[in-house]
């Protein structure tokens, strides 16, 4: 006999709160650190009411010091705690970049596993919400490039909670990117209590045999809209939501692009050095002879993410994606 799992309908940001709540409840060692996460519940309310519930000892408002509290988080992680750190916006993470790439991601290697850093860093990322400048970066590739840290990014409430719990339980540091554009735009049924979405596994959002579309996070709705639009013209797209940006699910990519032979990769980050290039490399390494057209990339431009007055031009749109789909079809 199976007990029915209770579900609730939540937005993506509420699902994150629910995931944090679940793990604060489950593990004494889980501790939240960040700016304005206590009384204020975080600038996006991702930690709403958690301090009331778990106290100032476990949901901690830190001084304004990204390097300081990420560094202190490393010290706590090494000494028995499971810190979940909120960076207010990904664009503000750079002071902590050194702590992340020279310490959090390297300590296991440096000490052959003697000291490890089971830590999660949460950061809202991306443009499209009319936010002030520097609040809109999507610089996942500077983290996926560095060995020793995993990078994940959900696109819906169900995955957000399950992936967050998987990140918290992962023995290594995980950067958890939150598409702020989707924080409140979708609602989804989310199971009560604990469940995980496996790190390293992508999901298909749509099945099709003509073109593979690969994206993640805030680009998923854009890609889905483009896929639906071209379907009317008889082009059937397969949409892969990566979910994990490192290590990428190469098997699902290979399986799909061997079937379709045509691929469009979409990300809002800059093109040069962007993750699209790694996806290209995977296609090259696994599926070169199956390709019927060169892979197209639809990305943000190689310009700093502009003021929001320009962001509709900067961000990949369903129009641009459709154009790329037609290009690989016509090739």
């Amino acid at each position, binding site marked *: 006999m199976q007990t029915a799992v209770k579900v609730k309908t939540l937005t993506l940001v509420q699902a994150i709160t629910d995931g944090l709540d679940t793990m604060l409840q489950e593990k004494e060692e889980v501790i939240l650190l960040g700016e304005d996460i206590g009384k204020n519940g975080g600038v996006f309310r991702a930690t709403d009411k958690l301090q009331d519930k778990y106290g100032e000892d476990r949901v901690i408002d830190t001084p304004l010091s990204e390097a300081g509290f990420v*560094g*202190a988080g490393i*010290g*706590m992680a090494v000494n028995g705690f499971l810190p979940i750190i909120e960076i207010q916006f990904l664009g503000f993470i750079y002071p902590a970049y050194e*702590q992340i790439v020279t310490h959090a991601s390297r300590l296991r290697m440096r000490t052959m596993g*003697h000291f490890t850093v089971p830590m999660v860093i949460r950061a809202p990322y991306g443009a499209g919400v009319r936010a002030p400048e520097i609040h809109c970066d999507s610089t996942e590739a500077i983290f996926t490039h560095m060995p*020793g840290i995993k990078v994940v990014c959900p696109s819906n409430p169900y995955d957000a909670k399950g992936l967050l719990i998987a990140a918290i339980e992962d023995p290594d540091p995980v950067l958890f990117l939150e598409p702020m554009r989707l924080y409140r735009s979708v609602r989804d049924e989310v199971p009560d209590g604990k469940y995980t979405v496996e790190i*390293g596994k992508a999901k298909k959002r749509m099945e099709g045999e003509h073109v593979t579309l690969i994206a993640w996070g805030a680009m998923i709705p854009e890609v889905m809209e483009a896929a639906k639009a071209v379907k009317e013209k008889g082009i059937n797209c397969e949409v892969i939501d990566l979910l994990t940006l490192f290590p990428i699910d190469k098997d699902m990519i290979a399986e799909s692009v061997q079937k379709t032979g045509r691929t469009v990769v979409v990300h809002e980050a800059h093109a040069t050095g962007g993750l699209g290039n790694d996806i290209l490399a995977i296609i090259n390494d696994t599926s070169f002879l199956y390709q019927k057209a060169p892979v197209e990339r639809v990305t943000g431009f190689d310009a700093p993410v502009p003021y929001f007055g320009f962001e509709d031009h900067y961000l990949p749109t369903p129009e641009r994606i459709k154009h790329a789909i037609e290009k690989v079809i016509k090739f």
Partner: protein
Amino acid sequence: MMENQFPIRQIIDVNGKIALPEYKEKMTAELAKKFYKQMIRIRTFDRKAISLQRQGRIGTYAPFEGQEAAQVGSAMALAEGDWMFPTYRDHGAAIVFGHSLSKVLLFWNGRNEGCIPPKGKNIFPPGIPIATQIPHAAGAAYAERKRGSTSAAIAYFGDGATSEGDFHEGVNFASVMRAPVVFFNQNNQFAISVPISKQMNSKTIAQKALAYDIPGIRIDGNDVFTAYFETLQALERARNGGGPTLIEAVTWRYGAHTTSDDPAKYRDQVENVKRREEDDPIIRVERWLKNEGLYDESWATTVKEEAITEVEEAVKEMEAFPKADPADIFDHVFAEPTWQIAKQKKEYFDLIGGEI
């Protein structure tokens, strides 16, 4: 002004005469002899390491000779279960706290094994990017306080580190969270080649504690008694919920920043010779022992001989260590290797004909 507000505390002067008589009772022969022994031990190690580097038997090495009192005094004040966050110049302190000599040599010979402390010793790998270990110490100490233990942490860093953001962020974090940590600064007055006068306009480092409303103490870093008793007191305060302390130990490194530079290029070496003659931390304890009638020539000879034997043994052990296994490049990046790492390992091992 600040020099007056933060006077240099000194328990014994350069002539080995007691300067603060209230410590007289605590300054036992046993304690002084332990200090002496540890300082001889780490100086012997340091000199041997330089010579090994010159012979190409280890890699680049960062010497600490001249700073033995600061490192021995502070490390001896620690208790079992405390945490140590050293820099690349603090392996003297790490050895005193229980790190293995051969492992420290292994570190300088390019091996990760050298970063693994002996069982039960909470010694972090040396902090390489300046000041980055300071927030770690704050976090590890805060973790101790949160679980209600009385263990504390010590973070080592130099004068230049106090210009870095991580110093200020780490000290501020510890101060706000009342983390039980001692920030132990060794002001050897040079950051590689840059003298402290170009590093900061502050007259002392201890005064930087004022900004965080924590005790700031300036000590004679070449007086092992002061280094020991002041660290002990700061640790005691930390264990009792009194929060962090910043200690500035004013000292001097005789040698180069590392074996890759020549200090004669940037520093008046006459000053260096003078300091060796007048203000050597080991000679100072020797003088005190002599003044107290506790110095025994044959005991001192034995201490020196034992140190040489111990260091020679460590060198043998380091050199007998198995060759680097390339698998270790791949096996410790994540708890479980990702497909990328597994693939690269397999391809590399196929190429070199080894077994995974």
